[in-house]
C-alpha cells in the first residue's frame, strides 16, 4: 500500500490529506458513495457523501415508481430501437445501488421474468420487433414506457433527474478519493505569488 498525500509543502496542516491507496479508494468510492473516504480516514466527508448521494438516489427511485408499478422504474438498462436509455450511463456512476438494473436486464435477456416486483426492471417494449421473443415474453407483465410516463406523469422525469444527478455527483466524489480536494485557497495563494526568476543558462564557451 502506498500512502500518497496531496497539497504538501507550504500547505497548512488541515490541508494535508493522506490518500492511502488512491485506485482502491476510488474503486470503493464508486461502489458505495463515501466508502473510499472512510477507507482513507476522511470520516466527515465519507458520511457527507454517503448521506447526500444515497438519499438523492433513493428519493429519485421513490419518485420514479409506485407500489403498483414497483419502485425505481426510472433506473433500468435498455438498448433497443424504441428506447435507448442513455440516462443509465449517468445513473451507474452511483455504483452498487444501480447494479440491480444490470441484473434485471440480464435476467430478461435470458428469457426470465424480472424479480423484486419490477424494481429497476426495463419496461415492456411496444412491439416484438424491438427485442427477442424470449425477452418480450419475460417482460409481458411489465408496463410499457408510455404507461410509466402516463401513470407517473412528471415524476418519471424528476426521478430520472434525481438519480442521474446522484450518479454524476458520485463521479466527483470518486475523483476526490483518487486525487484529493482542489483547495482553491492554495491555488489562489500560488497565483498571488510573484513569478520566480528564471535560472540563467550558463554561457556557452566559444
Amino acid at each position, binding site marked *: 500500500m502506498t500512502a500518497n498525500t496531496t497539497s504538501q509543502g507550504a500547505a497548512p496542516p488541515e490541508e494535508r490529506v493522506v490518500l492511502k491507496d488512491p485506485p482502491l479508494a476510488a474503486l470503493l468510492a464508486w461502489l458505495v458513495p463515501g466508502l473510499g473516504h472512510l477507507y482513507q480516514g476522511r470520516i466527515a*466527508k465519507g458520511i457527507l*457523501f454517503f448521506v*447526500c448521494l444515497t438519499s438523492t438516489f433513493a428519493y429519485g427511485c421513490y*419518485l420514479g415508481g409506485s407500489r403498483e408499478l414497483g419502485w425505481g422504474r426510472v433506473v433500468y438498462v435498455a438498448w433497443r430501437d424504441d428506447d435507448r436509455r442513455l440516462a443509465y450511463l449517468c445513473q451507474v456512476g452511483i455504483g452498487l445501488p444501480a447494479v440491480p438494473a444490470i441484473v434485471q436486464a440480464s435476467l430478461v435477456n435470458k428469457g426470465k421474468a424480472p424479480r423484486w416486483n419490477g424494481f429497476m426492471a426495463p419496461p415492456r417494449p411496444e412491439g416484438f420487433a424491438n427485442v427477442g421473443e424470449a425477452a418480450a415474453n419475460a417482460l409481458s407483465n411489465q408496463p410499457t414506457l408510455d404507461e410509466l410516463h402516463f401513470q407517473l406523469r412528471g415524476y418519471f422525469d424528476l426521478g430520472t433527474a434525481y438519480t442521474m*444527478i446522484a450518479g454524476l*455527483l458520485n463521479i466527483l*466524489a470518486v475523483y476526490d478519493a483518487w486525487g484529493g480536494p*482542489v483547495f*482553491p485557497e492554495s491555488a489562489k495563494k500560488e497565483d498571488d505569488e510573484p513569478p520566480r526568476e528564471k535560472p540563467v543558462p550558463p554561457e556557452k564557451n566559444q
Partner: protein
Amino acid sequence: MDRLLIASLATNPLWHALPLIVVVSLVYAATRHEDTGFILAHAFRIGAWIVGFMLSVFAVLSLISWIV
C-alpha cells in the same frame, strides 16, 4: 383566491429543486475542501449563486411573457 395560490405554491414541482441545490452545493464544495468550515461556507456560496441564477432566469422569462 389566496387559498388557490397557496395550494399551487405548495404543490409546485419547483420545490423538488431545493434538496437538489443543497446536495449539489454540499458535494461540490466537499470536493474542493477538506475542512468542514470551508465546505459549509463554500456550499452556502454555491447554493446562493444557483438560487440567484434561477431567479434571474425566472425574471427574464417573466419579462418576456409580460412583453409578448
